[in-house]
């Protein structure tokens, strides 16, 4: 088994070791009880900051990135949706989401956690969670907050697929159901594992047995390429198709009402993404530095490549192209952030931009779906490319960081191109299926009950006035 040694962006909660002790043996549990590790304040400070940065990504980052792209009559609807989704998902996370993602799920553990920490029961200022380094921990309450922002941004990302036409009431229901059926399980499958202490002191099989299913594939996902981006991209596509095209799609001009705001949004996404990617390291050390540097370089390369290809193909390099490239680069490096080397990150950036550009301009036109803000074309496609590339770029021979083998004292190993890429592909496919089916159920249910779409007059007049009773601008 090669999977036991993968360094993964999830972690075991020490409090759960009781459960896991079935396989772990009593000796370790006692040792932990004897001398529990204390959080380093540098790590805690970094994780507090990372959490704040992910909020910045959503509010106002994503809200502006998306908002700038719609027509001004729908601006407030995008902003309101982003803001209210964030609020709803956070409350849901505290009530049952954290528990569903980050506790042992008993017989369903391969797919989802349980309800033992519902209402954050047992989480207080003294409880801790492990990072990826043996013996290094951070306060659990900080981890709860950090992961909460991931749930919120993933859900908010989805709305770009059906912007300018979905009912606000449908959005509200979606933001409760979708995380519950789709996000929390996938987060559990990818990020839940027994932790480094257990992994270092137990046979590999035991660690896999205690982990989520996708973790068990041996797939690498440093900061959420599958959980966040592929997941959101698929959901957006499903939502876009079920909702139908916007009135006037492809016949009326639907130019972005403020590329200025879109650029501000893209910039704040970049700034905040360091909380996402380097924060996912859970520790302030050289690996966080690597994740940061990669997040700079892949993004920079992608930010060059997209407008460069536009320049070649359509004669003009555009700001929206550069901003789209930046986002595509950020998406692609997400799973690879702490695994690739800096030169690998640059190459990834150069590849992801033309691929996404091809999708949003050629493929989208071919299949004639109306993914308003290209969530599928940028996040899902970029996420898939990043996920697969991670399996390649992690190779130390290519400058990658290798995979931590906990059973071998934390040595960096690489199982070889084929098995690793297969593991990545399995993770991608599982995510696509789970998210596709789950999203279909969620949007289908809403469509059949309260309905997904606003009335035609509302869509024509703009959602701002009709749904929210306000206008974005009164100049």
């Amino acid at each position: 088994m090669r999977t036991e040694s993968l360094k993964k962006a999830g972690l075991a909660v020490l409090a759960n070791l009781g459960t896991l002790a079935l396989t772990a043996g009593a000796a370790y549990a006692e040792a932990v009880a004897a001398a529990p590790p204390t959080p380093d304040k540098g790590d805690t400070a970094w994780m507090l900051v990372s959490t704040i940065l992910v909020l910045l990504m959503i509010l106002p980052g994503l809200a502006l990135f998306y908002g700038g792209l719609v027509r001004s009559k729908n601006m407030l609807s995008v902003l309101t949706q982003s803001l209210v989704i964030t609020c709803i998902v956070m409350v849901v996370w505290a009530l049952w989401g954290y528990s569903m993602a980050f506790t042992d799920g008993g017989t369903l553990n391969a797919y989802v956690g349980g309800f033992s920490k519902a209402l954050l029961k047992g989480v207080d200022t003294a409880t801790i969670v492990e990072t990826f380094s043996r013996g290094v921990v951070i306060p659990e309450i900080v981890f709860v907050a950090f992961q909460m922002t991931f749930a919120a941004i993933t859900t908010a990302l989805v709305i770009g697929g059906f912007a300018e036409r979905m009912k606000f009431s449908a959005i509200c229901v979606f933001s409760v159901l979708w995380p519950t059926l789709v996000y929390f399980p996938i987060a559990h499958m990818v990020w839940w594992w027994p932790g480094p202490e257990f992994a270092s002191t137990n046979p590999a099989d035991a660690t896999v047995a205690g982990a989520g299913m996708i973790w068990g594939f041996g797939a690498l996902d440093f900061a959420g390429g599958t959980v966040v981006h592929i997941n959101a991209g698929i959901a957006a596509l499903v939502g876009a198709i079920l909702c139908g095209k916007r009135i006037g799609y492809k016949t009326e001009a639907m130019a972005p009402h403020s590329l200025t705001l879109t650029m501000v949004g893209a910039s704040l996404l970049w700034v905040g993404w360091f909380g996402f990617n380097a924060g996912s390291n859970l520790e302030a050390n050289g690996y966080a530095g690597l994740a940061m540097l990669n997040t700079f370089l892949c993004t920079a390369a992608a930010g060059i490549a997209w407008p460069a290809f536009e320049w070649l193909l359509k004669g003009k390099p555009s700001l929206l192209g550069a901003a789209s490239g930046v986002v595509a680069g950020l998406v692609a490096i997400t799973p690879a952030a702490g695994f690739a080397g800096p030169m690998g990150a640059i190459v990834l950036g150069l590849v992801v931009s033309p691929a996404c550009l091809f999708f949003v301009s050629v493929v989208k036109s071919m299949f004639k779906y109306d993914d308003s803000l290209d969530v599928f074309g940028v996040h899902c496609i970029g996420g898939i490319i990043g996920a697969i590339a991670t399996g390649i770029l992690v190779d130390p021979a290519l400058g990658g960081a290798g995979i931590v083998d906990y059973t071998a004292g934390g040595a960096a190993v690489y199982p070889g191109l084929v098995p690793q890429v297969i593991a990545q592909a399995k993770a991608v496919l599982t995510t696509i299926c789970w998210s596709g089916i789950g999203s279909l159920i969620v949007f289908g249910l809403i469509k059949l009950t309260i309905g997904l779409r606003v009335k035609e007059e509302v869509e024509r007049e703009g959602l701002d006035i009709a749904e929210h009773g306000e206008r974005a601008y009164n100049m």
Partner: protein
Amino acid sequence: MKLITAIIKSFKLDEVREALSALGVQGMTVTEVKGYGRQKGHTEIYRGAEYAVSFLPKLKIEVAVKSEMLGAVIDAITSKAKTGQIGDGKIFVTPLEQVVRIRTGETDGDAL
């Protein structure tokens, strides 16, 4: 010559422009305006305060045409801009005494 001024709903602009082009009208000038009429506005609420917004966004199209084109242009606008619902707008016709093309100095019919 006549100056035709039409107030229409914004999303009808492209259809109207195409219809006029088809008639051979080579130019027009469009302005964003706010219209007050039978079509009721809406209420906006900002925190506590409610405002009745009675002016709605419309487009004003101005087209200068030779008098013989008048009927055709009016028909084209009427048919294309119509949704049948209150607020579709109005067409006003005023006399036009003189037209000059700035670039060439051509006047009247030649300038259109």
